[in-house]
């Protein structure tokens, strides 16, 4: 505990230079702007920023990406409140109560409440990041190939399940397609080139960053340009800084949203959007005034914003401890760490424990910057929302092209970006979530190596996949996730539930 605190203070000390503080301020502000503009998502911002920072020293680059991530997830609340259009998918729940508050003429208060909620959520997430990363990392040291195989499958299945709640089948298809994409190119055991069809470029595999820039950048440009221009409302901003009592009244809701948001963020491939909705839903269920939700409830707005920002830190827990991203932007951060030569995973607490606390310090600095910038310069920054999309989108596409090209200086990567942009667009149109596919691209290599390794170790025996305790638990999780979405399982559960209820009902009647 004290060791962790000491390392955190040392890490914070490492960052105390004017240059670093300047980096934190501009990147967080840029993150807020990126998040605020509908269509520019956190994932796209972090992916483009990775291409701009790959020449910087590791800690500075990851710090800038972290600031971009936290700033963007918070920034999306601005357009959710002012325009009723969530700036990033993570802020959809924010719009439900944030916009009604703005329409009551209290746009400034809504921004203030959202900022405070995001700040508190991020701080709760940060504590849990510092607490759980070492614990999970140490636990994962017991993982062998069998467990990593199930972890990869579990990641795909749970991510597909939660990112496509209406139709999980499409989520799973997206995830397995992502795993397939990772199979393209030279494999890691015998250096055999798969699915390259003689192309030298393809034999190096599909790089994650151009794929993400395409799937989250180019696809979004197509989506946005498709719709005719929406009217920009010029809302008056009243006082922004919230009254402490207005926030503290809901301390239970804040802590619950923060903890729930962090846990959901930590589930592989399930990001801030789901965290915000679940926090919002839980707050509504346990609120004293649930009827106010959707009509401008401060509690609802706080819960949504606390939930999504705590998920940011939550998403970093599996990145650091298992090398499995908790959300789409965290997937880019993971890729960026690999580019910079950091190897996250179970060994990180042995090889580079300091790095974990550097990340905690980064979250802390980004959170403070977000809070300060979020409460200042509001009127000026909101003006950026008035820039027409026809002027903004070509610039974004120019950045997508040069960003995809810059990391390896290969024209081929531009083609990859364009291809994934079109695939990403089609997926969105047909309700296939993109996040499981991206998770698949990362998990593919883990799956490939560990399945084969496990088969070699067991000499073809598949029993250990189900007989080892942790394996068995992961397998049961996968099975439960798959089965729980089938119709017969739900009707059976419904019948059991009503049976139990009627049993208790009868007892109670009998007693009375």
């Amino acid at each position, binding site marked *: 505990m004290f060791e962790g605190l000491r390392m955190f203070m040392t890490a914070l000390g490492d960052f105390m230079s004017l240059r670093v503080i300047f980096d934190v301020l501009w990147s967080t502000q840029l993150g807020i702007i990126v998040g605020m503009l509908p269509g520019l998502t956190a994932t796209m911002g972090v992916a483009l920023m990775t291409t701009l920072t790959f020449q910087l020293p590791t800690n500075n680059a990851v710090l800038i990406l972290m600031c971009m991530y936290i700033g963007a997830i918070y920034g999306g609340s601005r357009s959710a409140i002012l325009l009723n259009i969530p700036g990033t998918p993570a802020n959809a729940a924010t719009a439900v109560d944030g916009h009604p508050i703005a329409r009551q003429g209290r746009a400034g208060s809504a921004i203030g409440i959202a900022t405070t909620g995001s700040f508190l959520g991020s701080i709760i997430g940060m504590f849990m990041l510092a607490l759980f990363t070492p614990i999970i990392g140490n636990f994962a040291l017991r993982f062998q190939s069998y467990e990593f195989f199930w972890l990869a499958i579990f990641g795909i299945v749970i991510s597909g399940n939660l990112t496509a709640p209406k139709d999980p089948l499409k989520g799973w298809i997206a995830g397995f397609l992502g795993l397939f994409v990772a199979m393209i190119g030279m494999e890691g055991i015998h250096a*055999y080139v798969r699915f390259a069809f003689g192309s030298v470029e393809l034999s190096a595999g599909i790089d994650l960053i151009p794929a993400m820039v395409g799937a989250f950048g180019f696809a979004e440009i*197509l989506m946005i340009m498709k719709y005719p221009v929406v009217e920009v409302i010029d809302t008056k901003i009243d006082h922004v800084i919230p009254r402490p009592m207005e926030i503290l009244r809901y301390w239970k809701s804040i802590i619950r949203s923060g903890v729930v948001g962090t846990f959901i963020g930590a589930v592989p491939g399930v990001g801030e959007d789901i965290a915000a909705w679940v926090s919002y839903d839980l707050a509504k269920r346990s609120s004293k005034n649930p009827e106010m939700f959707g009509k401008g409830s401060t509690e609802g707005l706080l819960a949504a914003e606390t939930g999504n920002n705590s998920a940011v830190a939550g998403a970093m827990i599996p990145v650091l401890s298992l090398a499995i991203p908790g959300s789409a932007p965290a997937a880019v951060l993971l890729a960026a760490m690999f580019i910079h030569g950091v190897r996250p995973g179970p060994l990180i607490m042995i090889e580079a424990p300091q790095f974990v606390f550097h990340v905690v310090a980064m979250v802390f600095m980004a959170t403070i910057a977000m809070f300060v910038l979020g409460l200042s310069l509001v009127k000026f920054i909101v003006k950026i929302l008035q820039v027409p999309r026809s002027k903004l989108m070509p*610039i974004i596409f120019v950045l997508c092209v040069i960003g995809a090209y*810059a990391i390896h200086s290969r024209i081929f990567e531009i083609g990859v970006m364009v291809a994934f942009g*079109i695939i990403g667009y089609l997926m969105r149109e047909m309700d296939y979530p993109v996040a499981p596919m991206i998770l698949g691209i990362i998990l593919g290599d883990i*799956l490939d190596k560990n399945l084969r390794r496990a088969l070699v170790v067991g000499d073809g025996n598949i029993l250990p996949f189900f007989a080892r305790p942790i394996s068995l638990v992961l397998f049961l999780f996968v099975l439960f996730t798959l089965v729980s979405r089938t119709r017969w399982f739900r009707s059976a559960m419904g019948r059991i539930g009503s049976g139990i209820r009627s049993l208790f009902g009868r007892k109670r009647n009998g007693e009375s």
Partner: protein
Amino acid sequence: MNERQMQRADFITSIVLIAFGVSVLVLSIQMPRLENKNINPYTVPGIVPGFLGAIITLLALILFVRALRQRGFQLGITRQAVSNIVKNEMIIRLFLTLALCLVYALLLVGWLPYIPATLIFVFIFVMIFEYQWGVPLFKQARTVLMGIVEATLVSVIVAVVFEYVFLVKLP
């Protein structure tokens, strides 16, 4: 997309995905077993892609059966439906954006030097979506001028930043 269109789209995508899954499976089975290298037979390169191909086929089959039940095979392609799509403003905007981006990314970059390629792309993009045909040019001089200024600034700034700050050799 409405529910009906989604059912049709699911029907078509499920067939594409089944074909894809089966081809992955077949290609994986055909992959060399590297016996001459005396490798452990459980590490042959085709084993994991084959497993994935099988799962994709299975999931796509479920989607196919579901689309069949929802009568997604009634595609409803009529002359009227096609002409409605062609005239739809959103579809036109989509294809214009797509065409502009593809020409820039796949043709202009690499064929022209980076700055002129980007300048042309940004200017034409802004003009296509902002210039109003039928309104005389002198009334829209500001729009055109702003387009030129934006295109010049973007292309020069991006080029300078990447070339001299990030030391990337531009395409």
